[in-house]
């Protein structure tokens, strides 16, 4: 039987260059499984290391944690990852951009990781595309 490599939290932190608090946060929010064993005797396996490296890879590509969560669930639906960490009754600020009757663009800049300029450009482009689809003239700004 193959001997599984055991890691401490310190070692995981050193290998992934992620602070221990961050790793603990991922475990608390279900992105990474809990350690094997309990309390002082707890240890981590290669699967923990792999998961952390995966998350780090996506983060450095600019993807939000919420989106990463969705990707992880999609990749392995049997993995026990809770879908959402939002609290009951949580209030989020989003922008509802009215484009034309019946068409709205909803943007949460935190989740989308977009700057104001990017949002404005996106809105312009979407509006342009819709106007074109409708065969209408596009106004020059």
């Amino acid at each position, binding site marked *: 039987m193959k001997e599984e490599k055991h890691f401490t939290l310190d070692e995981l932190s050193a290998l992934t260059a992620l602070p221990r608090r961050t790793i603990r946060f991922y475990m608390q929010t279900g992105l990474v499984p809990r350690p094997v064993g309990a*309390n002082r005797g707890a240890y981590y396996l290669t699967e923990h290391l792999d998961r952390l490296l995966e998350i780090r890879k996506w983060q450095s590509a600019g993807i939000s944690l919420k989106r990463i969560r969705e990707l992880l669930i999609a990749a392995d639906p049997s993995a026990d990852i809770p879908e*959402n960490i939002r*609290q*009951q*009754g949580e209030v989020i600020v989003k922008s*509802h951009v009215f484009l034309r009757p019946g068409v709205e663009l909803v943007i949460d800049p935190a989740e989308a990781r977009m700057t104001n300029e990017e949002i404005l450009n996106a809105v312009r482009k979407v509006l342009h595309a819709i106007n074109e689809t409708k065969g209408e003239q596009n106004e020059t700004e």
Partner: protein
Amino acid sequence: MKQNNCECAILADLNDNPVPLTGIDVKCVIGDILSKVAITQIYENREDRNIEAVYTFPLPYKAALLDFTVTVGNEVRHGTVMKKKQARETYEDAVEQGNSAAMLEKTDEGMYSMSVGNILAGQKIEISFSYSQFNIWNGSLLRFYLPTVIAPKYGDPARAGIDELHAPVTSVFAENTVNCKISITENLRKYEVSSPTHQLERSETGDSLDLFVKTFADRDFILEIRSGSERVPYSCIGRDGDGYVAAVAMTPDFGKEIRSVPRDIDIVVDCSGSMSGESIEQARTAIERILEKLTEDCRFNIIRFGSSVKKLFRVPAKVSAQSMEKAGKVLLEMDADMGGTNLEGALDVSYNYPSKDRLHDILLITDGEVYEDNAFYEAAEKSGCRIFSVGVGNAVSEGLLRKLSAITSGMAEFVTPNENMAERIVRHFQRMSMPVMNSEIIWPVEADWVWPEKNQMLYHGDTGVFFARFSEKPAGCVELKAHSGDESVYSWKTVLTTSSDETPCSDLARMAILERISERNDDESADLAVSYRLITDLTNYILVRENHDSDNIALPELRTVPQMVPQGFSGALCCAETVEYSRNSGTGFFGSAFSKMLGIDSRKQVRKGVVCQCDSAPAAETANNPFSLILAALDQRAVKRLFADKCIDALEKLGLKSSAADILRLIVKNGTDERVVFILFLNRLMQRNADAFDSTSVREYIVRSYGRLSASEKKLEDSVQDEFEQIFQLN
């Protein structure tokens, strides 16, 4: 194509755990020179497993935190200050090993996070910390500010360097309670004290005037202390190891020789969704006052922003009948319908218009609910513009606006919905018309260092605090000198106090050092922060407590403490049904009058997808009393407007009979202030129709406004008894 944008509050999803923060206790002592605030946060684990609580909360900008204690049962322990990296490692070690730890760190300007790891099942932990601030007078007002809630902000917290663990979260189910006691001591007891935000209970003791407030953590708590008398300079001295630190607070009085200098003024106003409701009305009032005060040598522009930025004029325009008419139109149309909060973009537009040889000032009106990064502040500093901000709303982002004004040599004013906007605008104009001054403080002996190091911008009636460090206890006269380009010289003197705080590392020394190092990021400032026990961007407070059974304690579950939804957030709009109903009930005596009024507003009130917060139930039947019909049917927005105008014409527009209005006008003509007549009348109206007043917001308004009348104004009620009776007889 016109784009209409709005911000919406959207309810999100589930879980069901009890919130670990069960109470907040605040005790303040306000003396002649300093205000000291002690806060205790009570954490309780009501589950059967150990948890880790994280609570991000607001404190005033640059508050100097002076101590940190953790109480469990009878045991009281004091925390220490460590550099961030070491503090975090200490905290992690403790939690992983099954011990308990508490850590307080600064997350952003005015924003702090408390992490309490391994609160054992059933355990109660009290964490206390305190801070001191110098009393800063602005004209005749000393404004005591205690924030209790962080409002939802637009944008990505990561921009401000805040990670997901510490980012504030708002929940409609949050119910954080605050118990507050404020003791006003020394000479301040003689002055007028009131609160525009909360109802106060008062109790006089031998030493102090004690004020009590029990409330929710859902808006800023403000205390206004007013004194018409001249500001007296004050000084304090405290030991700093083998030397002494001295502080002098002077309030310069430049007299009446304030000459107007030609300038360009950009009025930048936030029209994002968060400004909806009271805040946008405050902004409207502010701009009205600003337009009134513009002089002919000013050029101005109005720049509205949300997700996009809209300038009224392509370049700043001269004050003229035409430009004023255009401005007036914008004022009417202006609304919180421009979407997100692109504050950076709006300011960039303002910076980019080069004012050549004129001074370029920015009047910024916003609630500040946005995350910004360092580049934002750097751009402001480089712009050469002075930013005079007006922070509005019930949970304004004080840190952002104070920092923005400080680095541009401007000033920030804050106005909650019940405070006097006009007064603040007038003061900003006084500040803007100040020519640039060169100032210096002359101490009686040579100092090891002084703070501020460079030229401090002085404003008429605004207290400035100056520090210096000496190797021996200083004595004698301190002089503040200022001179402007045209060489007029001003000078104010004060004699240093002889008393001193002889504690080896006095609180004063710590406050002074904090001022010196707060903008710095280097190792030396981190070392100073540790030795003076100060929380900065580089240092945290930490305390570890060992647990007996640590080997058997698992890693804790995370419980984040959510913020409450701030009062008036997203505008407390009436639901569509209520508006419809009120329109239909437009019959009877006052019917047409208030339907018309509601008709103007209702177009803007109905917004797609907004979470409606109904303040009061709509009037179920047409009440017999025609007066109660007006007031009970008013929505929060219209009430604010009514009270902003504070005049008899407004009452008449609402449906008060002309003959009744004329009686009130006669009282005014005979010498009583219209505002006073207005409030006295409404107060009497409310007393007579108490049961018809469903709307608590209206009731609150009247009670608060009445409470803020002076004793002599209240007495006037007696003299107008007969006239009021006449009015009630009329109906």
